[in-house]
């Protein structure tokens, strides 16, 4: 078991990272980059849930936020993009 102080520090660090990730997603303008940023953000959220001891939600977030959603968005972008 890790000590409560270490856990609390880890929680704060991950919370700050998630906040920074959210800003990164909003500030990204180019569509494909935006999807990659969103995927990273999903990964960060999954780590956040894990650090806050919610492994079930971690798995869901990992599967949906970091894999499924970015993949479907990428495919949708490819669908609506016109040939150059």
């Amino acid at each position, binding site marked *: 078991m890790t000590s409560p102080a270490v856990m609390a520090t880890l929680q704060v660090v991950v919370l700050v990272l998630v906040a920074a990730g959210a800003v990164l997603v909003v500030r990204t303008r180019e569509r494909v980059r935006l999807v990659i940023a969103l995927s990273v953000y999903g990964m960060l959220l999954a780590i956040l849930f894990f650090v806050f001891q919610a*492994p*079930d939600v*971690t*798995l*869901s977030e*990992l*599967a*949906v936020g970091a*894999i*499924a959603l970015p*993949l*479907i968005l990428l*495919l*949708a972008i*490819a*669908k*609506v*993009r*016109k*040939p*150059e």
Partner: protein
Amino acid sequence: MTPKLRLWLFAIAAAGLVACYLWAFGGLPGFGNYPGPYGPEILKRAIPETNATGVVSAINFDYRGFDTIGEEFILFAAAAGMSVVLRRLRGEREQQQDRSPADEVMNRNVPPTSSPLRVATLVLVGPTALLGWWLATHAQTNPSGGFQGGVILASALMLVYLSGESIAFRRFSPVDLLDAAEAMGAGGFAAVGLAAIVQGLPFLDNYLPLGSSPGTVTSSGTIALISFLVGIEVAAAFILIVGELLEQTLLRQVRREGKS
């Protein structure tokens, strides 16, 4: 409205929001303190009542099974809707050449899949499929469940596609089989619930034998069964959605691979 006035309006509104937010923040329970009665109660009851040590799954698939069946059918409707919108009839696709998106242009220059990517993805297919299967079948004992397992099971097939094996991707995921699997998963969930009504029990009541001891794979009755059915449904739905989006690309690559 002048920009200056607009800025003032924003400043007033933002100050109000910050004040209300801080006020509400002061009324929150302390970090990690949960004041409601439901949490402690369910923690006390869940394992003796269901024999499932994965208490979150016990809530998802038993106590709140009714909510989960709603979510399940949202996904089912989404996959069915995408199929209706995107699945084209043969012959329909050739007429739209000039309007087709970039990924569907026949002579588009696709860079070949590099060997490291091909090896890395193919090596990961087996472990990923195993992990997904394990998650979908161990909801009763571990923090896992059909939703997560299903998506991970489906991403094993995405890896096959990513490795450039378009023909293998289609061979592993025939559309007819996926349609049937998706319907069976969603319908099976509803059937498990309705079977309780037939026996005179409430909808989605846990009527299967709970097993002798908590924490074993064969325990927890309908919880394990529903999780497995959800896993099948989610995996099929996700592969269907991605398959519909990829269909044109797949067709072209399969045709090209067939030629060479």
